[in-house]
Each structure stands twice: as C-alpha cells, then as structure tokens.
C-alpha cells in the first residue's frame, strides 16, 4: 500500500511513500517546460522501481503551487484523473509548504523560528510564503509549520522589504530557488538587520549562498509533500487540489467597436 505524490510546481518530481511516510521510490528531473511529456512515464517508473502496481495505491497527492500555470496544471489534472481511475482520494498540499517543512528538518529549526520560502515566479518575480515552526518533529515525525504570510507573488526586493523581524531569539531563514535567483534582495544585507532577530546562526542561515550550497531545500520534494498530506489528513484537515495561481490571466477586455451602421437586421 502506498501513496503516489506529484509536484510540478517547478521541476517534475514524483515519489511513492508507504503509509508510514517512508520513501519507497522517487524521481526528479529538472524539466521546466515539458512537464506533460515527463510526468506519466515517471509515475510508471516509480511503481516499477518499488515493485508495486497501480492497484497498490491508496491515495494521490499533488503540489498545488503557487507555480507557473501550465506545469502546475499538468500535475493537478494528472493527480485528479489518476485518483478517479484508481478510485482513491486525491489530496492537495501547497508546494511551498513542502519546502518549508523540509527546511525545518534539514536546518534543525525549532519552534518559533521562521522560514521565508521564495520560488521562481518568472517575470522577475517570486512566489513566496512565510512560515513559523510549530514543531521540529510533529505527529508521524514530520515537522509542523503554520503559514504566517502569503502565499503571494511579487518582486524579490518588495517581498524582502515587507518582511517583519522574527520574534526575539528566533531565527528567520530564506530558502527556495528565489533566494538563489535574487541574492541581492533575499540575502541578509538587503533585509533589515533586525529581521534576523536573535543572534544564533543568523548570518549563516540567512545567506542565500549557504542555502544553495548546503542542506536547505531549493525545490519541493514529492516525498515530503506526501508526508505533510498524510499528517494533515490524520489531523482531519481538508486538502483541496485547487491551483494556487495567484495571478489573473493576462487579458484585457477590448473596447467594443460601436456599430457604425444602419439598415440590415
């Protein structure tokens, strides 16, 4: 029995986890355009690697973004349709949540610490959300975070400028691809000095280059996404798979040409 998890918010990630959250198989390709070509074969691959068949799947999990639209939808429509075909539930988890949860585990963050997740929104903007750690190891061994701001989309420097400092004694870390893409905005010198309230590790943890080089996650891990979903389901939460677009379609209503004619109908 296993849960299949899909994230197409940036690259294409697929994982199979057991009901206890342990990773059975996983695949990730750094493909940013052809999500629809890569995803389905990867699902077949993880099933084969784990020695499972589709009948062994008990649920499907999908990252709901925020993310560039076309790739995001590939993951969501695949998860929903696969769940329909298998007759199992489908659960959605914001992709940024998976990055935050993984950061808590990887960086040893503790209750009260905060995580600013920033990912690539293209058009020189980032998708972002800010989280506060509730538990380093919550139910089922998975960290628990609460969202304190976002998810939203904006220019990196505007996002940085809008951040309040963490509580005294707490740390604020910036993770995700956005931190690496816009280091001038999303690394310590650009954020107000008191954002890194407390003194422990602030300089180290804050710097984008440390994030990129070390253990900090840059992309959502589909296995973590599945663990978060299982934890939240166990807590009775609803997990809708509505996409977090955060942007409206780029369209303008035309000014209607006045009928300049007479006669006819």
């Amino acid at each position: 029995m296993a849960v299949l998890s899909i994230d197409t918010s940036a690259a294409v990630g697929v994982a199979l986890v057991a009901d206890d959250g342990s990773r059975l198989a996983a695949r990730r390709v750094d493909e940013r355009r052809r999500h629809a070509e890569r995803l389905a074969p990867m699902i077949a691959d993880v099933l084969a690697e784990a020695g499972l068949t589709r009948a062994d799947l008990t649920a499907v999990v999908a990252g709901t973004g925020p993310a560039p639209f076309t790739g995001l939808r590939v993951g969501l429509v695949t998860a929903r349709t696969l769940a329909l075909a298998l007759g199992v539930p489908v659960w959605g988890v914001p992709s940024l949540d998976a990055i935050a949860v993984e950061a808590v585990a990887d960086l040893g963050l503790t209750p009260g610490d905060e995580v600013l997740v920033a990912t690539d929104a293209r058009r020189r903007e980032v998708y972002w959300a800010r989280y506060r750690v509730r538990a380093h190891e919550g139910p089922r061994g998975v960290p628990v975070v609460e969202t304190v701001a976002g998810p939203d989309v904006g220019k990196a420097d505007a996002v940085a400028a809008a951040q309040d400092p963490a509580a005294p004694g707490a740390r604020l870390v910036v993770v995700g691809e956005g931190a690496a893409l816009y280091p001038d905005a999303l690394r310590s010198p650009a954020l107000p000095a008191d954002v890194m309230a407390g003194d422990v590790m602030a300089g180290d943890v804050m710097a984008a280059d440390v994030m990129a080089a070390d253990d900090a996650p840059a992309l959502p891990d589909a296995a973590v996404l599945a663990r978060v979903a299982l934890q939240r389901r166990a807590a009775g939460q609803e997990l809708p798979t509505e996409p977090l677009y955060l942007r409206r379609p780029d369209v303008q209503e035309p000014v209607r040409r006045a009928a300049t004619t007479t006669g006819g109908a």
Partner: protein
Amino acid sequence: MAADPLVLGIETSCDETGVALVRGNELLVDATASSMDEHARFGGIIPEVASRAHLESMIPTIQRALGEADVDLSQVDAVAVTAGPGLVGPLTIGSSAAKALAVGLGKPLYGVNHVIGHACVDQLVHGPFPERVMALVVSGGHSSLLLVDDVATNVTELGSTLDDAAGEAFDKVGRLLGLPYPGGPHVDRLAREGDPTAIRFPRGLTARKDQAEHAYDFSFSGLKTAVARWVENEQDAGRPLPLADVAASFAEAVVDVLTAKTIAACRAHDVDTLVIGGGFSANSQLREKAAARCAEAGIELRIPPIRYCTDNGAMIAALGSAVVRAGVAPSSLDFGVDSSMPLTTIHV
C-alpha cells in the same frame, strides 16, 4: 481486446472540454463543457482562461459521460485524446488527463489528430466510410481538404487555407460589421435576409495562375480586406450600409470557393462521397450550396448534425476507435502535444 473495443475520447484543443465513449462506430455518450461564455467579452479565445476551465471541467465531464452511459471506467478498453493541432495549454490538460487514465486503468493510449477527427465523427452518424471519401474540414481554426482512403492510416491533404480559416474570416467580418463575438453565427443569420449576389466580392486563389500550385488551397484574408474596403467606401460616401447584403455576399464568396474547389477535387480523384465537418459546417449557405452542387455532380453528401461538427469528445473517440481497430500501435506515454500538427500525422 474485444473486436469492438470501448474507447474513451478526450478533446481539449480549444475552449470545449469534450469526453465521449464510442464502441465501434456506435456513440454511447458525448459530454461537453464549454468556456465560451468566459471568452465572449474578450472577443476571442484566451488560452489561459480556456486552460483554467479545462482543469476544472475535466473530472466532472468524465464523470458525467460515464454516468450518462452507465459505464464504469474499468470497462474502458482504450483512451484516445487530441494530440494536436490546437492551443498548447488546453491540449496539455487533455493529454495529461488521458495519460493518467491510461496509467491508472492499465489501458493503451492513442494521441490523435483533431482535424481528422472532425471528418471521422461522421462515421458515428452515417456509418463506415466507403473506400475513398473526400473530407472538407472547416472551422474557426481550420479549412482543409482531405482525401481519405483509410481514416486511421491513409489520409492525404490536398489543400488548406494559406491564411485565415473560413470560420475565422466570418468572425473577423462579424467584428467589422459590429456584430457580437463569435461573429460566424451572427453573420450567417444576417446573411439569410440578404442578397448573396448584391456585391461581387473576390474569390481567393481561383485565378488561372493559381491553379498549378493552389488548385485546392484557400485564402480568405484578401476577401476580408475587400469587405472592409467596401464598407469603408460606403461609409465615406455617407450611404447606409446594407448589412444583410454585405453578409450574404461575403458568405457567398467564401462558400462558392469552398464548394467549387471541393467538387473539383472529388472529380479529379474520382470520389463520389463528400464529408463536411468542423464548426463552420453549421453555416446555412455552405450546407445549401454543397447540397446543390453535390446533387448536380452526383456526389453523396454527408454532413453530421451540428452538435457533432463543433469540437467534441465524440470525434476523438471515433478516430481513436478507428485507429485501435486498424491495429495501430499505441502512443508512448511521453508524447508531446503539437499545436500545429500536420495532417500527415493521424496519430502519434
């Protein structure tokens, strides 16, 4: 697989989410959700708006089709989906859903050509095609003349539009005349009250010099410009526009070329059955002129009812069914959609 496999077809090339079930040439159900109302105020299809609607409509439309046909997904033998041509964003939703169904059901997947589906759907209405048929596919996105020897394996494109599709020309002229979007049906309604011989608009690519290279190709861009110029001249002269006559004469120019070239192609290739498909085959002047000219030439004319001429899942399930029965190998799970899929590609 059974002799007559049950094929589920998914169509998402533009603004309609279509799901249908076909067994052999029998249509069990055809369910469609449309986002047209959301596009009308923009005066054209907005791909991102259509893509969002496809994502939200996919599961409900599949469920509606299954419910109405009283079929369980486990009974489906194969999944067919539009692989192109069309809008990339919308196509991607359909192909992803179809791949997920194929993986989830453990059944083969067939990515097929939307335009050829427009011809193939007629088999669900009028029965199997005879050995060789001519197909004219006309819509807001396509105007193609196809010689069909075997709809699953052997289709030859004799000609197509070099610029605007027939339906597109109608939408543009509709806008020119101040009619609501989409202009096609409005121009058609107006044209019925007008005199198609009132104004002699040009017939594209019918000159002798065009016959060598473009005998069966179409061009409607020059016609649209001619209508615009004519309207301008009348307005400059301060004369009231005879809207109905303009619409009727414009439609006559489009329909005259479409039918004349199609009949000529039938004669040249010794074909005595003509199939017309695509959303523009709803046009009343096209239906009347095609019927008259086919009768005159001794050609059997097959036009499916209008609900099968617009984009729908039935056309894709129909072509999928034909392809499966022809023994064609299934598509690979990694196929990509092709927004400008050529008509030489029946399936991927």
